[in-house]
């Protein structure tokens, strides 16, 4: 008997050890439940992180654009005739009004991590007798590359955007028959032809993006697109990617810009992520509930089995509160030990699955994310669940009439 342990702990541990088989079975059950939760949570977190990485590294999380241009017919003036149909005007390429001020304002927000201005528009890329329609992105590389991680996708050359240089996608390079260091002509209606050198070739893993996207310096794009001193969008990354839509709405309400978040532009993907999260939560909830019911059932049986012991303990002066605590501790201990074993089980399953499950291209299906927090939370929540599940059996034990209990 350990001298520093209080009576309740001693009794709880001894009762659990005395019914070793029963204890092992329930601890096994809890371990499997917690293992499933840990495995699923870590795997889904990994898969989700992978998906999000794939989607969000090639697009900004929020894009601020000039507001839609609308026709404003004069109404209600005496002597004017109202048109029955008002046609939507063509959307000319215009700059965001006061963009340096807006960018500074965005950068100052605590929920915005980076804000980069870009000027983009259509152009033609020509080489020999081949031409391809492309989107010309004029960027400030040092900040833009923090938002869209182009350097991570470079397959040839470097992510260096210079006055004479251009970055193009792997598909465009192949269509034009061009390789690193070759010169191509980029033609725009306003600025005519401009000869640029291919400084880098990237592969976003998306054919359309590899065919269309090209990156030049902001100044180049401004002059080629006829937007001297202007930009067509301000791209943002935010601290919490799931708050992107609410931030976008807030910004749109505050400023004269249109704000599109990745959640809106990738609605289907976002719905899939949400559905996955919801199903994960549901599975966790039901596994947690079945673990709780398992603990409660075993403890109810234990109370019945131990009723004579409880009776004799009460007869020798044990208070109801002490009996209550003995069974609450048993619930907590069962769940804690089960959760520690379950965490180890879940981590092992995760390692094994991570090693064997591969994508078609041989790369990992999901990054292995073993967050210490996950294990700590699993243990804390499981223990709390164990104690909560033990409340009913513990109350039953505490309320046992010693006369009835001793008589059996």
């Amino acid at each position, binding site marked *: *008997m*350990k*001298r*520093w*342990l*209080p*009576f309740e702990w*001693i*009794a709880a541990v*001894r*009762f659990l*050890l*005395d019914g070793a088989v029963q204890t092992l079975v329930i601890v096994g059950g809890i371990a499997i439940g917690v293992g499933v939760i840990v495995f699923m949570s870590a795997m889904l977190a990994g898969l989700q992180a992978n998906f999000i990485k794939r989607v969000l590294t090639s697009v900004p999380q929020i894009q601020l654009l000039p507001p839609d241009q609308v026709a404003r017919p004069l109404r209600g003036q005496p002597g004017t005739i109202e048109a029955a149909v008002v046609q939507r005007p063509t959307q000319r390429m215009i700059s965001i009004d006061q963009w340096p001020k807006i960018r500074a304002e965005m950068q100052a927000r605590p929920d915005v991590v980076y804000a980069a201005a870009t000027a983009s528009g259509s152009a033609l890329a020509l080489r020999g007798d081949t031409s391809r329609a492309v989107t010309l992105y004029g960027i400030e590389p040092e900040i833009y590359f923090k938002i869209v991680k182009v350097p991570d996708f470079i397959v040839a050359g470097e992510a260096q955007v210079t006055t004479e240089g251009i970055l193009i996608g792997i598909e465009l390079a192949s269509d034009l028959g061009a390789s690193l260091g070759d010169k191509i002509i980029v033609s725009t209606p306003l600025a005519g032809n401009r000869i640029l050198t291919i400084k880098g070739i990237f592969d976003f893993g998306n054919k359309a993006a590899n065919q269309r996207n090209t990156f030049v310096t902001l100044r180049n794009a401004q002059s080629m697109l006829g937007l001297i001193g202007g930009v067509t969008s301000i791209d943002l990354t935010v601290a919490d990617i799931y708050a992107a839509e609410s931030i976008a709405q807030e910004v749109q309400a505050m400023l004269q810009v249109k704000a599109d978040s990745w959640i809106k532009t990738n609605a289907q993907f976002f719905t899939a992520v949400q559905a996955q999260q919801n199903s994960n939560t549901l599975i966790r909830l039901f596994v947690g509930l079945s673990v709780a019911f398992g603990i409660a059932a075993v403890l109810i049986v234990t109370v019945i089995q131990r009723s*004579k*012991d409880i*009776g*004799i*303990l*009460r*007869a*020798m*002066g*044990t*208070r*109801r509160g*002490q009996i209550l605590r003995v069974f609450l501790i048993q619930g907590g201990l069962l769940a804690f030990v089960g959760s520690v074993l379950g965490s180890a089980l879940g981590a092992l399953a995760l390692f094994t699955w991570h090693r064997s499950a591969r994508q078609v291209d041989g790369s990992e299906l999901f990054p292995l994310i073993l967050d210490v927090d996950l294990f700590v939370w699993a243990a804390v929540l499981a223990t709390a669940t164990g104690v909560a599940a033990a409340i009913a059996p513990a109350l039953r034990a505490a309320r046992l009439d*010693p*006369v009835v209990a*001793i008589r059996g």
Partner: protein
Amino acid sequence: MADVLTLDGIRKSYNVGTPVETEVLHGIDLTMQRGDFLALMGPSGSGKSTLLNIIGLLDRPTGGRLLINGEDTGQLGDSALTHLRGHAIGFVFQYHYLISAFTARENVMMPMLVDCGRPDAAMEQRADELLDRVGLSKWRNNSASNMSGGQQQRVAVARALAMDPALVLADEPTGNLDTKSADDVFELMRQINRERGTTFLLVTHNDDLAARCDRIVRVVDGRIAG
């Protein structure tokens, strides 16, 4: 000097306030003084066990007064009764009821542990002394389930003495033992009674053992018959 136990017109009814209300004890008067060794006898269903439960503060009477060491228990709440039971009364049951998850020594320590909350050296020493007194020093680290009935009952006697109670209630303590063991256990209680002056109230069906007690009280149909 105050009586250890005073029963004054103790009544007990079941199903109170219903058409099937039954009174099983019809006004019991009894006093016991320090050092008494009393046998409580009576046929099955006479109310002995009910009376013993009431005296042991495990059950409450529906009428009359019960005084332990001069303290009226009628006014005490549940936790005060539990405290008084732990300190003033020791129990020895027919089916010994040691807690199988603990060793003999730990079973003897249990009333002290329950009272103090944590084990200490003094408790261990007292448990060892008591086990020595009942002749089971060698068996102190044995689990309760690895002992014979007679040995278990001796441990139960040692446990009943752990808090040095004024009164030990023994409900047919030898009812489940062979003649030799029964005799040993009875003699042990008798010796302790003489050495320490502990008051013993023994429920028994055994006339020979009853004859060796100081007093015999017979309960018949819920009344003291003599």
